[in-house]
């Protein structure tokens, strides 16, 4: 896919209602485009009544997991995650908002393995309609995700199309330079 390599030039992209411009088949369905804001999920689903505290507690669990093993989520190639609980009327909804570099289609199975390993099931199993056989049925899991994915109609990236890996390499380089400069002063 052609990308604008001028990583310092912010870019915005309006996205059609379907979530993609041209239907391009991925392994598990249409692939979503890489946008200036990389790849991403906005998965919104109603939670089962009474599960809010369990879901919130899981936030702390992930915090601790990452503290103990900062690279636990490395296979997802994330930039950022934001998990939100919000109310619509008397119902409570969960939103999984992630910005990452893999198109989901590519690393689906890795993601599912990882969700098992880090127990993301603790959250997903609290969502209405989540397939009970998700651990053995990748397609069921993926169907749920696709059905609850809400494509953006606009995405904007200040440093468009740059992968987290590239950013981390660049930051390491800058850090090395900066510390060199400090030592030279």
């Amino acid at each position, binding site marked *: *896919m052609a990308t604008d390599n001028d990583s310092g030039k912010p870019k915005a992209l309006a996205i059609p209602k379907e979530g993609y411009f041209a239907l*391009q*088949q*991925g*392994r*598990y369905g249409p692939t979503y485009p890489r946008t200036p804001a990389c790849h991403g999920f906005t998965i919104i689903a109603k939670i089962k009544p009474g599960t809010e505290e369990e879901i919130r507690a899981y936030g702390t669990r992930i915090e601790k997991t990452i503290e103990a093993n900062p690279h636990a989520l490395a*296979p997802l190639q994330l930039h950022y995650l934001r998990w939100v609980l919000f109310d619509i009327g008397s119902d409570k909804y969960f939103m999984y908002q992630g910005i990452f*570099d893999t198109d989901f*289609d*590519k*690393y689906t*199975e*890795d993601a599912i*393995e*990882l969700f098992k390993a880090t127990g993301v099931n603790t959250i997903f199993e609290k969502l209405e309609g989540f397939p009970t056989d998700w*651990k*053995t*049925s*990748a*397609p069921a899991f993926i169907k749920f995700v696709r059905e609850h994915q809400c494509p953006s109609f606009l995405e904007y990236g200040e440093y468009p199309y740059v*992968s987290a*890996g*590239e950013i981390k*390499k660049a930051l390491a380089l800058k850090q090395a330079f900066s510390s060199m400069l400090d030592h030279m002063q």
Partner: protein
Amino acid sequence: MAAQLDLGDIQHFLLARTPALAARYEFLSFESVAAGRAWLAGLVPKVGTGQSVGTASPDARWVTIAFTCNGLRSLGVDDAALATFPEEFRHGMAARAEILGIVGDSGPDRWFGDLASPALHAIVILFARDAGERDRCERQHREYLSTLAGVDVLSALNLEALPPFDGVAREHFGYRDRLSQPVIAGTGEQPTPGSGSPVKAGEFFLGYEDESGAPPPLPRPELLSRNGSYLAYLRMEEHVGAFRAFLRRQSETRDQQELLAAKLMGRWRSGAPLVLSPDKDDPALGGDLQRTNDFLYKEADPHGYRCPIGAHIRRMNPRDTAENMQRRKMIRRGGTYGPALPEGAPDDGVERGIAAFIGCSSLIRQFEFAMNVWVNDPTFKDLDNERDPIVGNHDDPFDMTIPKRPIRKRLRGLPAFTTIRGGAYLFLPGIRALRFLASGNAEQLS
């Protein structure tokens, strides 16, 4: 808790490599259910089983039979049953070509031998000790077909090992082949050092526990699916003239050419891996199966100064630098076709290449993953605009970065060294399933 493999029911094809110097693939179409069943009924006894592996196999018993989804339908498997087979298999490789990066010059609209046609129903694979034996089998099969009506050979492909027939498999570019092979858990075989743990049988054969720890659900009827596998077939032309010209163009000396060839592959042509022998070839190492796979990347070569991140073997088997490797293993079977192009000879325009089958229990999770992510993802491992230099699709210009100190080398706009000329998704049934398909009646099998 590995379940005992039902060796008597599993076709031999994925269980062991047969000592063959020649092979023939025939691509068949059945005009009617009856015709297909009749053909199959006569051939089932000739299909080798897992049990026959290692025993003397005097003649054409290295026969393998596999079917496309249309082929199963043409043998009377009804749509309700077919619907329980995975979508990717039902749609077939041609429909999934975009996902696989098999597009442009490699696209199904340009395939040879009617492989993209819905009329393709079955492949019969004949491996033979030598070309003479292969030709004998071919004649025998032709005679057999002449006794039946309604079974058409859409096309066929003859394969031969390349000289010098020294017991070492090579492909047309000159690289040693068949150095890696997963070992199936429960067979008692020991993986060579560096080849990873034995892989649970369910990764290759339906009805067994796989690396998830459970047996995945079987397509119905189980009689048809149990002990079966999926195969992806690829006929890949190798542009030997273009490959050699590229090496010459990029290098001033023969040694530089060899190093560049090694950087593209990740191994010297002898098979010696760059991680273990970064600066010069080591043929003794290349040929020593106890050593030639005994390496990892993460610690030994994190930045690819030895084996480039994008080199063919590092993409196809990232070893300790990828997740869930045990769920990506596949078994490859096949060989070379077309005459060798002698060193120094100008390209002769003759098609030559590799025609191979990739066996697994999930085309989408194993084969398609490898093609989609490892071979053709331009941002694989944070590379930028690169694909597998050997087997990636290079219809658009992709690059290759060779990490080097002090200054890396970036090859811009690699030419396509290979083109896919045909392909198919197949189901490789067990022996009982073959009989069931031949009879159309489960009761006859007990």
